[in-house]
């Protein structure tokens, strides 16, 4: 505590006048401001990527502005820059007030902001501009920047834990979630970055990390914010669900990870795990929301006046949908329709921009002190535009996903078309309208940030006290810090062992016959190796899967994938979404088995250069043109795709 004691008293009258003073609140607010900047960058880049689905030639011709480079930059900014730093800001601001202590190690904490923000920014530049993207959705940052960001989250978790430990051994409800969230970020980031397995095991490991980083961690931070803000208004706590809610949430969420690979090449039992635990998560989320709702009974008038609490209410309403959507994505019957479609992007938007985003915005309003008055800071405009735009975007993704899923089944059942080549046009036709609607929704969401920023600039007075009431309601349960941290750690490790370590070991490293024959899977030739690197760094895997599932939807795509197909590949090649057709056996089909045609097609799918390439001209395709790649790179990428036999 020596560092904390040397710090000057927090400037009560005018904190904003001394932003460089490492007083406890200025550390939290600096994190909050950085988080909001990342939000703006992330949303704009995400919007740009959505625009490319509607108009593939928009801003084309430059590698850094291609779809596969924009998407990872937006993920890094939104997931780690915005939600991650806002979680840290909320923890730094709220934990001292909850426990009656001071922020531990404030100078380290302030310096650490540079580490996390710098790591995310530098990693994004490396991925977006230099093309160093590593495979794995949400885990694209290269290993060196992973190390920086990972250490940053670890330091943040340690600072939060020391802050919580300084005053008392017993923590109130909000503090469990805030401390827990930072540990989930640290653990999830470590799991996501450390390369332990290849192929299927890598994919399972990546999805487990994502379940923490894009699920449990930001959710915990958001719930912590909700408990803090609502707890101040509630006055007293009625049902004692808090302990049950926290532990059931931590227990169930990590186990839902394998839903990302439902019907995939892993063992059959692994597909049953997310079915059970998505239903379990439903219980946890009901408990969280019931606990908060019961506490608020009869006090809605006070809550309505508060900007942050209104955002909390919208965030919790969206959060209530999360387990329901996870159930749809986990059950085999519904997964066989919606999995690998735009439906998954709807879940991404519902969680990252919606549920967690609104809870983080509530934290931003409170921590940055811009939520005092509805009228002065345009928060009402922000709320309406953000909620409306998000709703439009998410619904468009779900409609698009259902249409694509049923289109695939219809093609197989009628045998009228295959879901590759010309036949894939049916899928794109189904996506056309919803893609425009999605762009409109996201644009409205992006516009909603203007009143948010205006409020930030005009009203950053440092007066955060718009939520009246005591810091902790009567009757709220407490738990020991050690129990919370160690218990959460053990539960996550237990889940990790079952849902990715055991199946990864089980998958083994024995190549399948296919993996021994296919030049793109063996890659002894450097041409194929270069093509494989480009497949990962240019983000081909965002729109193309390489997994054939043993279900009706995938009939006609070739042999069903087995773990041995991936032994020499990154888990990312399995993919998550089919905006374009599956490529697992692209080299066994006409015309994608011709390197010459493939090279021309990659250069410009809508108008391939060269002679006699009319066979592959697809004016209706939404694939990006890769004409900006060098001839050697185009040749390598074409070799890789045609070598996927």
């Amino acid at each position, binding site marked *: 505590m020596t560092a904390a004691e040397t710090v000057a008293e927090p400037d009560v009258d005018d904190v904003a006048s001394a932003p460089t003073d490492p007083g406890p609140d200025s550390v939290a607010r600096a994190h909050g401001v950085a988080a909001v900047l990342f939000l703006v960058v992330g949303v704009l880049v995400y919007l740009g990527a959505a625009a490319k689905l509607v108009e593939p030639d928009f801003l084309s011709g430059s590698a850094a502005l291609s779809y596969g480079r924009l998407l990872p930059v937006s993920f890094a900014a939104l997931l780690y820059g915005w939600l991650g730093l806002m979680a840290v800001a909320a923890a730094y601001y709220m934990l001292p007030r909850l426990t009656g202590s*001071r922020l531990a190690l404030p100078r380290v904490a302030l310096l650490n902001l540079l580490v996390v923000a710098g790591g995310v920014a530098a990693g994004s530049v490396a991925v977006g501009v230099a093309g160093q993207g590593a495979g794995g959705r949400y885990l694209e940052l290269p290993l060196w920047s992973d190390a920086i960001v990972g250490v940053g989250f670890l330091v943040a978790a340690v600072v939060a834990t020391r802050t919580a430990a300084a005053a008392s051994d017993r923590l109130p409800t909000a503090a469990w979630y805030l401390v827990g969230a930072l540990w989930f970020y640290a653990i999830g980031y470590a799991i996501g970055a450390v390369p332990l397995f290849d192929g299927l095991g890598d994919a399972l490991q990546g999805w487990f990390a994502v379940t923490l980083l894009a699920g449990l961690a930001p959710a915990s931070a958001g719930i912590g914010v909700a408990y803090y803000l609502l707890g101040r208004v509630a006055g007293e706590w009625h049902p004692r669900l808090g302990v049950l809610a926290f532990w059931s949430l931590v227990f169930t969420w990590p186990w839902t990870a394998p839903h990302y690979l439902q019907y995939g090449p892993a063992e059959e039992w692994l597909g049953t795990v997310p079915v059970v635990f998505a239903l379990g998560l439903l219980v946890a989320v009901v408990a969280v929301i019931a606990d908060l709702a019961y506490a608020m009974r009869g006090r809605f008038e006070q809550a309505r006046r508060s900007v942050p609490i209104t955002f909390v209410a919208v965030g919790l309403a969206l959060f209530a949908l999360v387990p329901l959507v996870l159930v749809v994505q986990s059950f085999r019957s519904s997964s066989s329709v919606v999995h690998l479609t735009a439906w998954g992007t709807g879940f991404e938007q519902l969680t990252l921009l919606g549920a967690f985003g609104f809870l983080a915005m509530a934290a931003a309003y409170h921590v940055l002190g811009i939520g005092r008055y509805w009228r002065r800071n345009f928060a009402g405009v922000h709320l309406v535009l953000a909620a409306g735009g998000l709703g439009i975007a998410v619904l468009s993704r779900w409609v698009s996903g259902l249409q694509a899923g049923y289109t695939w089944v219809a093609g197989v059942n009628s045998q009228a078309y295959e879901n590759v080549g010309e036949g894939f046009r049916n899928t794109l036709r189904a996506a056309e309208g919803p893609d425009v609607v999605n762009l409109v929704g996201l644009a409205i969401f992006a516009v909603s940030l203007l009143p948010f920023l205006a409020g930030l600039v005009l009203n950053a007075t440092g007066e955060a006290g718009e939520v009246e009431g005591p810091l902790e309601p009567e009757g709220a349960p407490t738990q020991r810090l050690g129990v919370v941290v160690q218990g959460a750690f053990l539960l996550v490790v237990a889940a990790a062992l079952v849902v990715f370590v055991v199946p990864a070991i089980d998958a083994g490293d024995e190549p399948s016959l296919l993996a021994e024959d296919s030049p793109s899977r063996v890659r002894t030739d450097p041409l194929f190796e270069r093509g494989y690197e480009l497949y990962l760094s240019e983000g081909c895997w965002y729109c193309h899967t390489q997994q054939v599932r043993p279900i009706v939807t995938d009939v006609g795509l070739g042999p069903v994938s087995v773990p041995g197909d991936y032994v020499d590949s990154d888990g990312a090649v399995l993919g998550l979404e089919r905006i374009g057709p599956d490529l697992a056996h692209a080299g066994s089909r006409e015309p994608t088995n011709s390197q010459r045609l493939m090279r021309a097609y990659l250069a410009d799918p809508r108008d391939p250069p060269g002679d006699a390439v009319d066979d592959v001209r697809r004016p209706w395709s939404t694939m990006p043109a890769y004409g900006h790649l060098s001839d050697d790179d185009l040749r390598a990428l074409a070799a890789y795709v045609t070598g996927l036999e």
Partner: protein
Amino acid sequence: MDELLQQAAEAMNAPASMVERSARARAQSEGVSVEDVLRAWAGGGEIVASGGGGDAPAAESTASEPAPEAAAEAEPEEPKGPEVEVVGDADVPADDELEAAEPAEEDEVVDDEELVVAGGVPNWLVAVFIIVPVFAITYALFLPNGPNCGDAGRLAVDPITGEAVGCDGSAYGEGTIDFFAIGEETYASCAACHGANGGGNANFPGFTGGAILATFPTGQCESHVEWVRIGTADWPDPTYGATETPVGSSGALMPGFGNSLTETELRAVVLYERVAFGNADLDAAIEDCGLGAEGETAALGE
């Protein structure tokens, strides 16, 4: 007492109603008068902390501060540093204590008490916590969502080719193309002008009453397909069909669908019109429109 309450509320920076409730609870638990508690909280004196009381720790810590600082428009939840006194065990007060603390001034609270069982968890939630996990395990293990062939779209895998096949090992859905159904679905884009039942509409010709087969008789399906493919604008001849109808004579334009429909859809929708509205024989029309065994390959191999 109201004035005292206001002072205390101001000192604690908390709503008066909440301060009053807390004060009542404290008075009850310590056997002193409510006024005494409020006076102490308003800054007038020390209060004795009790281990298991029902007070919010924050309320207590704020109360031990001198009033003016907290009231001076400062951030009310500024951490109070080492002075803060955190109640060791802030467990939920027993139900009877809660009831005593709140003499039924809010109706909702009374309703709560009726809903809530011992332990503070409402009955319906207890039911949810039992039913959902039981359902989860039952569903996963027994209901038709399992990993067996035939469940939830699941197919078998041919051990030789590795392809997904039907549960009996035969190729999936062999020879079962329902062109009529494809055509019926595709016809949705024609129905706006020609009517859902093919009856026509204003200037747009109808297909019923023998009209369709009069224009494109049996054996001339190809000509029908070409008409739908090309439309009026680019039609090479002045007339179309066996009736030699002048192009554009109906007063309406027929768009060409060659770019928006696949070859299969084009032929299937023509098939649908001839069978559904012209009463043509389905099997004969399939051959006629190039969708039979040989023609099928041509249409699908586009």
